[in-house]
Structures are given as structure tokens and as C-alpha cells.
């Protein structure tokens, strides 16, 4: 991936992430989150993970965010009122995030494998979907079927939770 594209998409992704946090209107937050996910999908494509990039756009930027916007509009949320902010949460959130980034920088400095450049792929064309499918159905068949059961349980759970009266 060209460094210019990497920096452009990374900075855009982080800017949209900041905008998710700072916007008081939930609809604006959700749309910023869509932008952040699209930039992330382009980073995935830059990392030669085409299948993951496509399902990031289809599942996250498409289905999940439509669900979020649908619920925001269903609940008819107004912009969050300005209440007295909680200083403990403010200081705690900033401190833990700052400490996490500082610790990450410290770890990355002493991580020799991290400073290697992009390794070249040994193949002419990467038929990414076939390879992911091969790994999924050969080595991860049981987890794949378990995830299918999980999705079934989740959809039944949603139907039960959205009934008018919970017993």
C-alpha cells in the first residue's frame, strides 16, 4: 500500500472517530461511524484483504449502521442535553486512553518484528476469497457452524426481547 494512501485513510479514519465522540447528535455520530468504517475498509483492501474489506462495507457500514440509524429514529432521540459533566469520567477516560497509547508506543519501540517493511507476496494474483473459504471450511468448520447457531440464538433472542410484554 502506498504510504500516502495509508496516511490519508488513517487520518480520515481517526478524524471520523473523534467526530463520533464529539458530536452530540446521535445521527451525526452514526454517520461519522459509517465514514470511519469505510476508511477502515480501504485500509483492509490496502492490506490485500479484499474479502474482509468487502464484508466490512456490506456488514458493518451497511447492515449494522442501518440498524443503528433505524433504532435512533425509532426512539426519536434528541441531541444529548448539556448536563454537568462528570469530572471523574473525564479524567479517567483521558488518563486510561493516554496511558494505553503511551504503553503501546513503549511496546512497539521494543518490538523488532514490527519495524520490518511490507513483505512481498510470493504469488502473482491473490485469489483471496477462495483462500479464506478454504481456511474457513477446512480448519475452522466447527467454529463456523457454532457461529451459525449463535446467529440463530441471537435472532430468536431479539424476537423475544422485542415483544410488547416481557413475561
Amino acid at each position, binding site marked *: 500500500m502506498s504510504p500516502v494512501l495509508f496516511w490519508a485513510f488513517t487520518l480520515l479514519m481517526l478524524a471520523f472517530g473523534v467526530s463520533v*465522540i464529539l458530536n452530540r447528535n446521535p445521527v451525526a455520530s452514526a454517520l461519522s461511524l459509517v465514514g470511519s468504517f469505510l476508511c477502515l475498509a480501504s485500509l483492509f483492501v490496502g492490506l490485500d484483504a479484499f474479502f*474482509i474489506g468487502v464484508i466490512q462495507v456490506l456488514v458493518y457500514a451497511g447492515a449494522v449502521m442501518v440498524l443503528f440509524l433505524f433504532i435512533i429514529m425509532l426512539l426519536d432521540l434528541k441531541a444529548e442535553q448539556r448536563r454537568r459533566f462528570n469530572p471523574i469520567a473525564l479524567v479517567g477516560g483521558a488518563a486510561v486512553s493516554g496511558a494505553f497509547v503511551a504503553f503501546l508506543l513503549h511496546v*512497539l519501540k521494543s518490538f523488532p518484528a514490527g519495524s520490518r517493511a511490507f513483505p512481498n507476496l510470493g504469488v502473482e494474483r491473490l485469489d483471496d476469497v477462495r483462500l*479464506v473459504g478454504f481456511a474457513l471450511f477446512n480448519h*475452522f468448520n466447527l467454529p463456523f457452524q457454532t457461529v451459525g447457531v449463535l446467529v440463530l440464538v441471537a435472532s430468536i433472542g431479539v424476537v423475544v426481547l422485542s415483544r410488547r410484554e416481557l413475561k
Partner: protein
Amino acid sequence: MQTLTLNHYLLASGLLFSLGFAGVMLRRNIITIFMCLELMLNAANLSLVAFSRFHVGTDGLPNYNAQVLVFFIITVAAAEVAVGLAVIVALYRARQTTHVEDLQSLKF
């Protein structure tokens, strides 16, 4: 421009994760908190895909186990969003609020 390394991707992923964490701590609207959780899950996905691309095996292919894991994370996250939003809707029906400071009946 210097060449890209694995560290660049890990740093981008870490920054995205800490943004999501700061959002979970700072925001008071339960739906925005949920969106920040999604941001944190995606940061983990970015580092997994970067590890996959930078770990080229003897056959000259990226390590696809990491990408299968990302596939599972996306599937489980989608199921989690569906259940979580249903819980939020049920909560809103019972209390008419999505503000976390109004939901204190379990507070000690």
C-alpha cells in the same frame, strides 16, 4: 515518506481503540456508547489483518487464520449489535430514557 511497517498499522489500531475507549468513558448516551464499542472491535480487526499481511508464510501467502478470525469477529459483532439494540429498545420502553445517569436503580 518513509516505508510502511507493521508498527504503523498497530499504532493506528491502538489510537482507534483508545478513541473508542475514551468515548465509552465520556459519553452518556447509551447508543453512542454502543457505537464506541463497535469502534473498539474494529480497531482489533485492523491489527489482526495487519498481522496477517505481515506474516507471509513459505507458500508466499498471507496468514489466513487471522482473516478467518476477523470474519468471526464481524459475525459475532453483528449478532451482538442486534441483541444490544433490542435490549436498548426494551429499556427505552420501560424507562423512556437512553441516558446512563438516569438508570441508577442497581447502583449501590
